[in-house]
């Protein structure tokens, strides 16, 4: 034992001590456990837990780690998966991240997670460590991380606290992600006052690996060694999982000390390269990143996924702060740490790689066949548990839920306010609005070039990354959510979120393959919020089944509420698609003079929940109708168009409708177009305002070269899908010219579109 460890003689609550002092009270309530949960721990152990055991159970049984409120609903993602949907799945839900086969022996892993609460408390570090955490999940699967995306939701753009959060969160994502050498290829930025005290900071990461390189988090092989490596363990993030992520902010309760982790992107970058060398040299048997609940989580999950036993000497953990107690060491959420299982023969090879990258490591113990996780402190047993009771057999709640009584009133309140007479002014107002304006101010702070494989990034519909330099094989990813739709109808809102992400991926030309989701909700203890959650999961699982794309993993973030007010139900859905060659990806803007502009799909009067209604301060009625069979046909057409070179540009219609799509397509490369709405209005029996601002689903605008028009029309006819020529690309006239209504010079449109974020945050 080192001198340092000698100095750390605490009043250790050993297993023997716990057995001898059954009456001693422990601070289970302060650690976030309910009395029932505490009694259950006593029952499992047949005695009171030690302080260290209590620390482990409290963090692992927290909402954040155990999914105790959401588990009963999330099962649907597994239950509603058909064999056909599993065809491309190499690893499904339950591991650090799902793995999808994309062909030629390549696989892709991706996952979206939340870091909402820490980002409100400490925006820079909260957002930064959110990126760090999801990237470590990707490494844990044996993959090289190749891209990140960030769906972000803030409060009202002009609220005094919003600038603090925007500056900190954007800088945190950039500061961490840019330093890791990961291109940031997309995401979302939404402003809505419902997120004022609860910004949503979600992060998605994508990794690439060969099939044979998949690594899983399990500790098997009796006698194999357990090693902790990366950054040292400090006092940051202690109790973060159980306290911060699982309790709503409420000023009436005694304040729990903010416990946001501090990130070191340099340490993580080194960790990535060092882990990839470990994988290449095949010197690790199992690997797990340390995220929420730190060593508690890593040891109990590794042990219970493997042969079931592990023996650890906790004084071997390298510390930043020597005053940490055993319980604190077990709970610490210090970043940039990994745990691995190594055979005795590979110990030397492992150490050589660590030394090469100057990464610190310490051998903590070994895998045993006892079925018990035993943790000692200087030889005294402080934890002796069945690891499955910590990691997998936590409490499961069937929380009561019911449909909110207010929903009928909200759904009956359809949008019938002003429909602008001046369409030109309306388009300018829409494109300058916080949710529709250019997000360049944010995305210009992220590196989209590094690694040299970015084929599409913001502001195109999806991010596209080349995987194989020889063949051009690659993937597209898009994330979407519309909290307003979900507020009006959570079941439909979830289906709409999936449909939009799916459509975006197809619009870029990729075949949609798999889903990852991050479900952001208020408190599950509120039966109305719980109903929103249950409906969302049911809607998403049903829609996944209908579109044939499985959920491969994701994350649930509850307690996003301040006082009694919850955020809108916000299911952020990420869809991954595959390209046989990224060279055929479709950009979101037209460039060539004279190309025909076509609208795919039909338009109905659907303004409830729309961005236009939002600009008029209205939220009521029903979200747009969705037919997933139509959505599937549209996707097939868009993918086919890309494959056969029939279109040169495509953009999906979603928030802001046709007005937003046409504006964005024109601004993408600064090329104008002449558009006519008369035929559309006549065919769909709508007025010009509805044609421009309705948010009817399953629509896209494409630019078709003259030479391809016949083929294009034949294909749409063959699939019985409505399409209408609505205009022509016009390079001469630097304007969006909607004939008979307005002529909007692109300079003016650009100024309105780009000015908003710099005006508020520049």
């Amino acid at each position, binding site marked *: 034992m080192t001198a340092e460890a000698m100095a750390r003689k605490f009043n250790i609550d050993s297993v023997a001590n716990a057995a001898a002092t059954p009456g001693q009270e422990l601070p289970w309530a302060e650690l976030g456990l309910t009395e029932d949960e505490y009694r259950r721990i006593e029952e499992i152990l047949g005695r009171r837990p030690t302080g260290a055991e209590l620390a482990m159970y409290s963090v692992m049984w927290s909402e954040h780690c155990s999914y105790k409120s959401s588990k009963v609903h999330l099962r649907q993602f597994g239950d509603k998966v058909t064999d056909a949907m599993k065809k491309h799945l190499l690893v499904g839900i339950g591991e650090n991240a799902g793995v999808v086969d994309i062909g030629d022996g390549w696989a892709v892993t991706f996952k979206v997670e939340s870091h909402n609460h820490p980002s409100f408390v400490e925006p820079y570090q909260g957002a930064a460590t959110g990126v760090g955490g999801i990237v470590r999940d990707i490494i844990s699967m044996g993959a090289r991380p190749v891209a990140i995306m960030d769906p972000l939701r803030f409060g009202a753009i002009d609220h005094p606290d919003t600038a603090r959060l925007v500056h900190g969160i954007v800088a945190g994502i950039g500061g961490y992600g840019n330093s890791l*050498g990961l291109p940031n290829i997309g995401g979302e930025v939404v402003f809505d006052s419902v997120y004022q005290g609860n910004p949503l900071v979600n992060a998605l990461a994508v990794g690439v690996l*060969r099939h044979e390189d998949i690594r899983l988090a399990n500790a098997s092989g009796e006698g194999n060694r357990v090693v902790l490596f990366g950054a040292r363990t400090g006092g940051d993030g202690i109790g973060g999982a159980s306290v911060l992520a699982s309790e709503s902010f409420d000023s009436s309760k005694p304040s729990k000390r903010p416990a946001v982790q501090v990130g070191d992107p340099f340490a993580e970058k080194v960790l990535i390269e060092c882990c990839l060398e470990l994988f290449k040299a095949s010197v690790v048997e199992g690997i797990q990143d340390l995220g929420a609940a730190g060593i508690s989580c890593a040891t109990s999950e590794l042990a219970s996924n493997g042969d079931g036993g592990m023996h650890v000497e906790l004084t071997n953990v390298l510390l930043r702060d020597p005053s940490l107690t055993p319980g604190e060491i077990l709970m610490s959420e210090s970043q940039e740490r990994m745990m691995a299982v190594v055979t005795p023969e590979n110990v030397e090879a492992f150490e050589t790689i660590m030394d090469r990258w100057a990464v610190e490591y310490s051998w903590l113990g070994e895998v045993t066949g006892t079925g018990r996780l035993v943790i000692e402190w200087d030889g005294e047993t402080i934890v002796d548990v069945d690891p499955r009771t910590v990691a997998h057999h936590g409490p499961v709640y069937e929380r009561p839920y019911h449909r909110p009584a207010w929903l009928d009133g909200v759904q009956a309140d359809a949008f019938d306010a002003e429909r602008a007479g001046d369409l030109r002014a309306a388009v300018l107002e829409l494109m300058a609005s916080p949710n529709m304006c250019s997000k360049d101010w944010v995305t210009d702070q992220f590196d989209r070039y590094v690694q040299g494989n970015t084929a599409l990034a913001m502001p195109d519909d999806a991010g596209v990354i080349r995987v194989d330099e020889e063949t051009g094989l690659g993937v597209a990813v898009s994330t979407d959510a519309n909290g307003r739709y979900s507020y009006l109808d959570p079941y439909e809102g979830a289906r709409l979120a999936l449909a939009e992400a799916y459509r975006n991926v197809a619009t870029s030309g990729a075949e949609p393959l798999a889903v990852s989701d991050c479900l952001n909700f208020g408190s599950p203890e509120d039966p109305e919020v719980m109903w929103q959650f249950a409906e969302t999961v049911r809607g998403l699982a049903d829609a996944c089944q209908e579109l044939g794309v499985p959920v491969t993993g994701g994350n649930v973030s509850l307690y996003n509420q301040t006082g009694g007010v919850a955020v809108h139900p916000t299911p952020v859905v990420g869809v991954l698609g595959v390209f046989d060659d990224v060279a055929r990806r479709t950009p979101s803007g037209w460039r060539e003079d004279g190309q025909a502009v076509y609208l795919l799909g039909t338009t109905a009067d659907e303004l409830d929940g729309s961005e236009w209604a939002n600009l008029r301060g209205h939220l009521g009625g029903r979200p747009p109708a969705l037919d997933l069979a139509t959505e599937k046909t549209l996707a097939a057409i868009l993918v086919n168009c890309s494959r056969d070179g029939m279109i040169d540009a495509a953009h999906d219609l979603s928030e802001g409708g046709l007005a937003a799509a046409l504006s964005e397509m024109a601004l993408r490369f600064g090329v104008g177009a002449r558009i006519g709405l008369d035929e559309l209005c006549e065919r769909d029996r709508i007025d010009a305002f509805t044609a421009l601002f309705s948010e009817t689903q399953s629509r896209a605008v494409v630019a078709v070269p003259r030479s391809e028009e016949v083929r294009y029309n034949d294909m749409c006819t063959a699939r019985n899908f409505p399409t209408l020529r609505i205009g022509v690309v016009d390079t001469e006239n630097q304007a969006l010219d909607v004939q008979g209504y307005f002529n909007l010079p692109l300079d003016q449109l650009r100024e309105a579109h780009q000015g908003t974020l710099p005006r508020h945050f520049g």
Partner: protein
Amino acid sequence: MTSTSIETPLIGDVQPSTSGDADGPLSEVRVGVVTFPGSLDDRDAMRAVTLAGGSAVRLWHGDHDLQDVDAVIIPGGFSYGDYLRAGAISRFAPLMEQITAAASGGTDALPVLGICNGFQVLTEAHLLPGSMIKNNHLHFLCRDQRLRVENADTHWTGEYWAGEEVVIPLKNQDGQFVADNRTLDELEGEGRVVFRYVDENPNGSRRNIAGISNTAGNVVGLMPHPEHAVEAGFGPDSSAREDVGLRGGTDGLGVFTSVLRKLVG
């Protein structure tokens, strides 16, 4: 594990390119790319060398051997996390001693290119004057930047003509080039300002300077990233030379072909 034909690439494992000058004399030229802990664009720089027709060689900061390379690129990134000061720790790497010595012998000395963080390392190593401080707007900025090639006689710019404009991605947080006025006058007077920002100065750099050289012209440093404008489909959306397709800009390739041609003679 049995060996497989393709594995998840490690740093510097660039797959062979079919383009470029695979069998020609340029492929004989060995260009080393140094990886420090925290280097990020090292694989990209190696890919650029390969696409230009040369042979890329992976160099490790902790080694003492330059492996007989004919030229060296110090790539972009955040070596040592930019802790203390960008480039301040990396300049003490064992390999930097070799590079500094080999680069300091006049026009026949080792050609060295520093890109972004590499430029910062070269100023810290005193191979180039001046220094980079935080951008004047205090943000990380990633954008496609128009530059003018002011000096087409350096080892790394021979394929351009003086006054030619190029579009090359820029991405950094500490990109503001500063030096005292005497140094700046000296750089201008000796024609050692190699690249200058055009249209808009993105970071407050003195006299719009984007890149400079040493007196002999074998050592060049610049903040923008030419290695991200070398392959059609993965570069910027525009070029200063012609109308290009989506992400079709390859204006940066000339930096790499310049040094290969120079070395082939």
